[in-house]
């Protein structure tokens, strides 16, 4: 009796499962459209590549980031910003750096002196694998997701500012509207839908690219292989995932 019931339950369970699968397949066949696959975090590992040679300092990424993520338009609140470096031959370790309004309106034109090199460096959250900001959060309001994106849970953040202090890259700020920490999300709401981030979407030269390091078909692998690659502050052992090509060693 007991066995029969057990067998019946197993058989009916299997039948239910089969009909479900068959119905799904039939539906897809009839409607001629793919059933949207749910986003699987475990099969992605997100990062970004930035080619310094391609960046022309237009600042469209800074503007797009604020538009996409409703970042405050006052200066000093940035999820991404662009710095202009002027490196002089005789003092390579002390470059002149400016970033008027984070590069939001572009940069005022300058003429380079003969002994200097000028280039632009877009900066943002590095989505570190061993992120100091995650380690110091006392409540678990900031964390690295399974797919390698460092996020802030704004409904749970206390606004204690430890993470702002801990980030070696200065990528975090306190949003005065909510009194919680805020930073780049790598446009998680876009990349998890198969889109690119707002900054990469608008970049006219393709200097910024979203990279899925777990996707073997992603051009990031060729990019990392074929370019001289650096990350910012490697000595901090944070394992950043924003990879800069052709970066000058004077950049901090």
């Amino acid at each position, binding site marked *: 009796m007991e066995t029969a019931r057990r067998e019946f339950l197993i058989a009916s369970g299997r039948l239910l499962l089969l009909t479900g699968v068959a119905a799904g397949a039939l539906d897809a066949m009839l409607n001629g459209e793919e059933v949207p696959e749910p986003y699987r975090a475990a099969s992605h590992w997100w990062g970004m590549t930035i080619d310094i040679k391609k960046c022309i300092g237009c600042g469209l990424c800074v503007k797009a980031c604020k538009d996409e993520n409703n970042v405050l338009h006052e200066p000093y609140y940035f999820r991404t910003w662009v710095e202009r470096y002027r490196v002089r031959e005789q003092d390579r370790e002390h470059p002149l750096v400016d970033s008027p309004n984070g590069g939001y309106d572009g940069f005022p034109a300058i003429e380079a002196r003969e002994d200097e090199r000028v280039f632009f460096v877009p900066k943002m959250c590095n989505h570190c694998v061993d992120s100091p900001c995650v380690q110091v959060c006392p409540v678990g309001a900031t964390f690295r997701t399974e797919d390698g994106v460092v996020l802030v849970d704004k409904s749970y953040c206390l606004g204690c500012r430890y993470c702002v202090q801990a980030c070696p890259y200065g990528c975090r700020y306190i949003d005065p509207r909510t009194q919680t920490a805020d930073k780049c999300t790598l446009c998680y709401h*876009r990349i998890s839908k198969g889109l690119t981030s707002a900054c990469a979407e608008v970049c006219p030269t393709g200097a910024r690219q979203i990279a899925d390091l777990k996707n073997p078909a992603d051009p990031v692998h060729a990019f990392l292989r074929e370019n001289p690659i650096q990350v910012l502050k490697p000595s901090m052992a944070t394992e950043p995932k924003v990879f800069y090509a052709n970066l000058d060693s004077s950049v901090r």
Partner: protein
Amino acid sequence: VIGREFALRPSVKDWLHLVRLAGLFAAGTVAFLVIRPIFVPESFGAIGHYRAAAVVEARERPLNFADGTACETCHSDVVALRQEKHSRHVNIRCQSCHGPLGEHVATSGERRPTLPDVVPLCARCHERSAGRPPQMPQVKTAEHSGGEKCSACHAPHAPGMQ
């Protein structure tokens, strides 16, 4: 002698100490079990030391910039024009200049974006300045156009001279 007497005849009162302790411990445990779910949010710890629901919330935020491939469905003429004229702007995404068009796409074109202010927009990339590659077309706008709008001579979608 008094101490010896005490050790040999434990009274009921002494056992009460242990009962009190056990009672306190039980009350503490109950209080912990009751209070903990109030302070620990739902789904906390399901994946890691954070609210698992926060990841889903971050994914479901609305877009302001549309999917860049959506423009082609209605504006194929512009896409075709850029290709026909071998436009140097052929690879530039629509929203780079036109701004966020998420609402425009979501309302099937009902919400119209405002046209960008061309002179500062063009100058962002084309104002002659150090740090830009030499092959990149650059001008000193003040000398180049004498205050005339860029679009008076250059069509933004195919910016060679008209």
